[in-house]
């Protein structure tokens, strides 16, 4: 089965989703990755078609169309990202598509996809006739498996442009938006005192996440107001919510919509455990230093 992967490059960097897509494609068959912007693509595993059409733009779907004509893939994979969806959605006007997919398999020449829909409350199993488009949620496949050595073919494709990229607007440093973070390490009153926030920050950095907090911690001024999770703060929706010393008052839990909640609390009956996938019964301040050391070991080792 031939799988065309739409690889994403933003501001000169190949996005992680690209590798995840390649990983998925490899499981389905033979991947070809299309890159439409200029970037170092050497570590994408397998064939890479590189068409330098400038910064990623919605009209790049026309390039994809040309490549489809040429390569005739059975499946075209996109990431469920802002740019991926732009292109996939235009292409899918005339082609079978599955969005919000997290699992893709081939079955008797057609494609079987599992999507998470209705706000994650329903799994939908879809069957698509090929050629088909699949828009894959990030985190569904292991990016590492999409990495390797690329064999790059550079192509020039002329298509019509109907929008123009103007430029990037980068976020101000201090404005970390916890509602958009995938991994959130959140601290509550159980953290004891302000000094321990540093440990939480270290852990967050190790996990590639950001630090947030519950109201008592924000009120103490230990973290800025922008980091507050809960009814009067923000709602977190990412992959992991690591709740450290948070009891889980109703007002707080309202803001926790992450896919996985992992709570650390000394009190086994703390309500936060009711929404947690893992409940760790421990004193945060004892656990944190040990945990940090161990993760460091793994990372370094």
């Amino acid at each position: 089965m031939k799988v065309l992967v739409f690889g994403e490059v933003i501001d000169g960097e190949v996005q992680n989703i690209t590798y995840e897509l390649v990983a998925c494609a490899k499981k389905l068959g033979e991947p070809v990755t299309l890159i439409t912007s200029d970037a170092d693509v050497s570590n994408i595993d397998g064939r890479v078609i590189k068409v330098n059409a400038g910064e990623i733009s919605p009209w790049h779907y026309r390039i994809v169309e040309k490549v489809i004509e040429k390569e005739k893939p059975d499946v075209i994979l996109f990431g469920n990202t802002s740019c991926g969806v732009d292109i996939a959605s235009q292409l899918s006007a005339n082609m079978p598509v599955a969005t919000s997919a997290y699992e893709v398999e081939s079955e008797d020449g057609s494609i079987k996809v599992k999507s998470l829909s209705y706000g994650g409350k329903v799994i939908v199993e879809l069957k698509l006739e090929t050629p088909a488009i699949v828009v894959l949620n990030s985190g569904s496949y292991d990016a590492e498996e999409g990495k390797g050595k690329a064999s790059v073919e550079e192509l020039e494709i002329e298509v019509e442009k109907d929008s123009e990229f103007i430029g990037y607007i980068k976020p101000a440093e201090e404005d970390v938006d916890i509602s958009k973070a995938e991994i959130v390490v959140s601290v509550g009153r159980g953290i004891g005192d302000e000094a321990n926030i540093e440990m939480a920050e270290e852990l967050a950095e190790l996990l590639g996440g950001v630090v947030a907090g519950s109201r008592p911690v924000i009120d103490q001024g230990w973290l800025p107001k922008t980091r507050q999770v809960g009814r009067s703060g923000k709602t977190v929706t990412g992959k992991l919510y690591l709740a450290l010393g948070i009891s889980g008052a109703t007002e707080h839990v309202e803001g926790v919509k992450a896919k996985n909640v992992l709570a650390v609390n000394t009190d086994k009956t703390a309500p936060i455990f009711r929404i947690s996938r893992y409940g760790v019964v421990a004193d945060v301040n004892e656990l944190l230093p040990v945990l940090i050391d161990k993760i460091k070991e793994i990372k370094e080792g």
Partner: protein
Amino acid sequence: MRICAVLRLVPDLVEELEVEENEVIPFRYMPNERDEHAVEEALILKEKTGAEVEVLGIADPDNEADIDEGLGMAAAKGADKLYKVILDRPSYKRAELAKALAEFLSDKNYDLILTGIQAIDSFAGNLGGMLAKNLGIPYIGGVVEVNISDGEVVVKKELGGGLLAEYRLSTPAVVSIVSAERPLKFVPFTKLRQAMKKAEIEEVELELPEFEGIEVVRYEVPPEPEITLIEGDVEEVADKLIEALKEISVL
């Protein structure tokens, strides 16, 4: 400048969904939140440029009445014209809707068509891009701010992690909104009821074309994740925790 905003209905997830193998039966419907943001953005543009705003409420025979409140809300906020588009049957295939809508919109001469970036019940395509493709006009999605000047549309698009990019499009165009520039305007109860009473809604019936190649095999409810309690001494706990982090592929 004439702007059209599309307002779809989705199941109200606050209520229980009845999930059967071949069917998802919602208890009731509500306007899709992203679409509400598209309507809001359209009305912000009306404030900014004096554009005319028309709202297309989309329902099917199952939930025809549920769109009224959403349209009333739009009217209360200042929409100029309301359409109630009733599809001949429910369909999860966005391509079908996109085709039918494109046909309906093709002679309406809107300068800008706004939709929500996606709906919570979409698993078979996103409307905005398909609509643009069918209409043969430029498209961009993931937008958080729209500005119009001299027949050109400049949008800010969200790329994730706080990064934004700016694009320029010629009109007519389709733009899919993630969130409006400001929070949704609040409409008090009385104002909404008045608007609903006064609003003139043009009803349109649309026939959906068939679109082959996609088929739902089954619906199912994801298994309830059960809590795994991790107890023991600190060392032990830390190890188990790391395992857990690996399991959910954070490490």
